[in-house]
């Protein structure tokens, strides 16, 4: 195994050459709308949009700030512009069942036109209908019908009167009816005269009275029947007049909308309804009181006040109007609650109760997007109660059924409506993070039926010249409309370097364009303060530095405690069984790392390697996996043919929160081997890396932060020249270190060693050869490995000697 050599300064940072940009300032650049490096995702978006079949809705996943939203917006705008225009939708009264309003579907722009036509028709009807009923012709015909009835009644009375007269009985009016008065010589018989009459005559009088009374009763019974006939005649007359009054107006509209069968059907139904309810247009008392109210309140008296009843009944509620829409509709719903998506039915308070009608139906986002595209944020959708279920239901059923949540859950029992469902034809585009997408995939059985296409946005893109140039161009386009100063090419180069650092990879750029754009925006402030018209590299660096400073409070506090020896970290000397590991932390937008003391203790045992973090449940599963790998390495590397007879305990000293990840497993192994071999480890070197069962060092994350975390402690204590960090070889391409670290390396005050195996780590940390097996499988004498093997063998022999095979914990 070749010893690890420290990295050269040029290997620690991949600068960007400003010469790759052919502009002086970004203001010269042409607009760039596509996000570079997202071809896969863009192809998926185009595919989903072009796919006309149901179920091919789109989920756009990826990190925030990678241009998902703007890519979707741009592509939709292009596609929708060439798409067919969506229809207007209206709700109208269902005269047969007002609880179930009917919908009308009309070509774009005609909904409002129909509404205006109907309003005009109502206004006309308010003039024409009363005029018809006030006309002399109507009055004459109506009076003739009423006169016919009056004559009938009078004829009836006269016949009864005549019949009564023949019997010498007069019919006269009482306060509440009619009395039958017997006469003698044309005068009413007095009680005295009656008493003097013979009995037969009295009886005869009584009989005559009864006959006349019966006759009157019979005749009177016929009057209600006649009245009913007369009412029918008047109703027929009224219908005739109404039909004549409005028929012409409605026929005109029927001609105009003859190609729309639904509209024609509605107009015909409306005509019939007007004829049957013409009193709506004739209620003079209502209109008078409305007029009086308007007069008293100072409002101009208008025919509108009189029209409210008619308008409420016959108005057209245009819930979707695409007059202004070009192509297919594209709707971005920022507040995807259930009612905002599916639509809602509003209510009015009237005399203490809540009432509603078809005029109070309101469209939701699905209505607005019907025939086009609806874009929603997945997180926002899923946190809204029942919104996700409502959306799925609409997509599966292919229709939008407006229902209030309160009613659906039986929380309220107000009068409500059941509007006719509207057929749904929409493409849904949901934007969300990856975790959410995979959770939905795993736990929602309907999800994949409805969202068959995923557009996966990269978090990082290749840092080649083409992408670099496009990235800068995209940035320039973003800030162009924000009144932000342009930047020069040096600034552009620095931005790219910052983006690479943000990606944690010298060969990549972070696809989070938002991060870079924010750097530029912040730089604009400093450029202004520095009196410059163009943002330069200085301002970019200033923005980066201040941004780090804003987020570094906890990092600085931690470093302080280390420097104050509250947290014990050695950066000099050497100790057996103790090594400086490196732990990274992510708090909000800021990430940093800090050294962490890892210690190992060993004793005779039954092969247990105790991870104290795991024992107290502070260690996550990946961390525990790393520790278990150590056991495998120990057994397979040192004591293949004898039992592993040690007890070892590993701990991250002074950590009181959780520990996760296996990036410190190499450090733990080194501490363990140091403890076994009783070989001290240099405390001037920190190590980070994951180790596998073969002892190979594997890549870890946040390598830049980890190096800088240890460097800062050493630097603040004073660099000694022999301090440094061991990092996995595979992480060298990720290095984009700070300039002060690079300067220290350049001055040989700090070193960074790329390592590929645990043996290389042991050599660097102990100063001794790790030792390679010879052909007989033995390690060289005095090597670290040999000492480890010897110690383990010693434990095995002792254990054998004890003969019990108990663990250290059993014997304590």
């Amino acid at each position, binding site marked *: 195994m070749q010893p690890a050599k420290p990295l050269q300064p040029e290997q620690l940072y991949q600068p960007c050459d400003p010469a790759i940009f052919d502009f002086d300032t970004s203001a010269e650049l042409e607009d760039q709308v596509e996000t570079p490096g997202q071809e896969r995702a863009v192809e998926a978006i185009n595919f989903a949009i072009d796919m006309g079949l149901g179920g091919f809705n789109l989920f756009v996943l990826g990190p925030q700030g990678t241009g998902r939203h703007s890519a979707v917006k741009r592509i939709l705008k292009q596609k929708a512009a060439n798409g067919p225009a969506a229809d207007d939708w209206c709700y109208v009264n269902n005269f047969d069942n007002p609880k179930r309003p009917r919908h009308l579907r009309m070509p774009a722009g005609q909904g409002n036109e129909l509404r205006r036509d109907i309003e005009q028709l109502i206004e006309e009807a308010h003039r024409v209908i*009363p005029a018809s009923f006030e006309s002399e012709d109507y009055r004459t015909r109506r009076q003739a019908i009423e006169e016919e009835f009056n004559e009938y*009644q009078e004829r009836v009375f006269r016949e009864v009167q005549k019949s009564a007269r023949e019997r010498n009985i007069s019919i006269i009016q009482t*306060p509440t009816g009619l*009395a039958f008065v017997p006469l003698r010589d044309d005068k009413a018989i007095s009680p005295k005269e009656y008493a003097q009459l013979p009995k037969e005559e009295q009886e005869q009088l009584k009989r005559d009275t009864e006959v006349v*009374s019966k006759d009157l009763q019979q005749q009177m019974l016929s009057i209600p029947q006649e009245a009913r006939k007369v*009412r029918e005649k008047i109703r027929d007359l009224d219908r005739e007049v109404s039909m004549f009054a409005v028929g012409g107006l409605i026929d005109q509209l029927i001609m105009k909308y003859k190609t729309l069968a639904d509209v024609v059907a509605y107009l015909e139904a409306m005509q019939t309804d007007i004829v049957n309810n013409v009193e709506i247009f004739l209620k003079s008392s209502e209109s008078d009181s409305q007029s009086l109210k308007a007069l008293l309140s100072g409002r101009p008296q208008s025919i509108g006040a009189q029209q409210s009843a008619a308008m409420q009944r016959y108005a057209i509620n245009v819930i979707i109007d695409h007059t202004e829409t070009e192509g297919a509709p594209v709707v971005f719903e920022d507040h995807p609650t259930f009612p905002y998506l599916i639509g809602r039915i509003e209510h009015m308070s009237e005399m203490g109760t809540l009432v509603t009608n078809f005029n109070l139906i309101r469209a939701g986002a699905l209505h607005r997007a019907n025939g086009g595209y609806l874009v929603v944020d997945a997180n926002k959708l899923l946190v809204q109660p029942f919104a996700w279920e409502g959306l799925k239901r609409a997509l599966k059923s292919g229709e939008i059924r407006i229902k209030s949540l309160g009613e659906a859950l039986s929380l309220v029992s107000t009068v409500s409506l059941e509007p006719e469902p509207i057929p749904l034809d929409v493409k849904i585009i949901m934007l969300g993070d990856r975790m959410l997408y995979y959770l939905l995939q795993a736990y929602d059985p309907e999800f994949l039926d409805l969202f068959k296409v995923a557009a996966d946005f990269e978090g990082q893109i290749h840092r080649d010249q083409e992408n670099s140039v496009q990235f800068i161009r995209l940035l320039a386009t973003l800030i162009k409309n924000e009144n932000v100063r342009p930047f020069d090419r040096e600034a552009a180069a620095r931005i790219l370097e910052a983006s690479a650092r943000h990606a944690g990879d010298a060969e990549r750029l972070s696809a989070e364009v938002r991060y870079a754009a924010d750097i530029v925006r912040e730089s604009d402030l400093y450029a202004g303060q520095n009196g410059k018209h163009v943002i330069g590299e200085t301002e970019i660096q200033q923005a980066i530095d201040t941004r780090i400073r804003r987020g570094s409070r906890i990092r600085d506090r931690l470093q302080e405690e280390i420097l104050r020896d509250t947290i014990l970290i050695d950066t000099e000397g050497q100790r057996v069984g103790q090594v400086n590991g490196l732990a990274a932390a992510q708090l909000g937008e800021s990430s940093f790392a800090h050294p962490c003391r890892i210690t190992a203790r060993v004793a005779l045992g039954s092969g247990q390697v105790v991870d104290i973090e795991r024992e107290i449940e502070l260690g996550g599963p990946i961390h525990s996996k790393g520790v278990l790998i150590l056991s495998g390495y120990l057994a397979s590397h040192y004591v293949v043919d004898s039992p592993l007879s040690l007890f070892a305990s590993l701990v991250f000293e002074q950590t009181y929160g959780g520990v996760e990840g296996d990036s410190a497993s190499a450090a733990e192994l080194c501490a363990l081997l140091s403890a076994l071999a009783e070989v001290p480890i240099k405390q001037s070197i920190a190590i980070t890396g994951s180790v596998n069962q073969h002892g190979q060092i594997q890549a870890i994350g946040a390598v830049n932060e980890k190096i800088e975390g240890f460097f800062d402690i050493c630097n603040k204590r004073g660099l000694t020249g022999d301090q440094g960090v061991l990092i996995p070889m595979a992480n060298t391409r990720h290095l984009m270190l700070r300039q002060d670290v690079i300067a220290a390396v350049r001055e040989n005050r700090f070193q960074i060693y790329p390592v590929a195996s645990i043996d290389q780590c042991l050599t660097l940390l102990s100063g001794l050869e790790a030792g390679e097996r010879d052909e007989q499988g033995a390690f060289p004498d005095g090597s670290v490995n040999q000492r480890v093997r010897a110690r383990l063998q010693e434990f095995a022999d002792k254990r054998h000697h004890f003969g019990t095979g108990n663990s250290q914990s059993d014997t304590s």
Partner: protein
Amino acid sequence: MARPGKRLQVRITVMLGNTDADRRALEMLGQLTAETPAEILGLFMENMDLLTFADLPVAREYCCLTHVERQLNPADLQRQLRIQARSAERALAAVAQRTGFNWSFQTVRGSLASLLQDVVKEMDLMLLGAARRTLPVPGHVPATTLARPSSQPVSVIYDGSEASRRAFTVALRLARACQQALDVFLMAANNDDLASLREQTQQLAGPFALRFHELVNPAFEDILAAVRSQRAGTLVLGINERLISPESVELLRDRLRCPAVLVK
């Protein structure tokens, strides 16, 4: 309106009932008295025949409200009549308060013909409302639509006599006060006379527009039929011997639907 030599206050007798038509007639009179001080005597007539009949053991009544026949109870009848009388008196008082005329009220018993004979000496105008009728006003057909109420003109019978001239003057004032049209029914022996009568009324009316209906030697019944056919709101006619005959009174009582104003 006052006759020359007589005091200026107009004496009006109103035969009151309890119907809307009576109330409208009272309102109209109120309009008339706005310009001329008037003294109004309200009369509520209790039909003598009815009161006599109520005491008979065969007295029965047919109730128009319920279409049920029942025994007529004299005490109940008297009670109902008193209620009606009070209601009529209240209606008169209300109009009097609004328009400011002097008024008094009496309940009388008798027949219309005898009442006319008695009252005609002491009054200048007499208003006969629906209460004069023996039979109830024919029931209206319940409306399925609300037709705008048409105007109901004031009608007057003019035959050139002094009484009819006075009646025409009253009718003209009524029509002006109530902003109604004035229908003039000209009665003459021949067509030539009709022309002369037309000219007379036009002179009396001045610029006020008149609508003429011409009748040659009509029977009283025909006059009333003609008035009915024009849907008169109020009929004004001059009192003469023929008018207060029992036959005419009977026709006036039963054939005319609107209130009648008799002018002495």
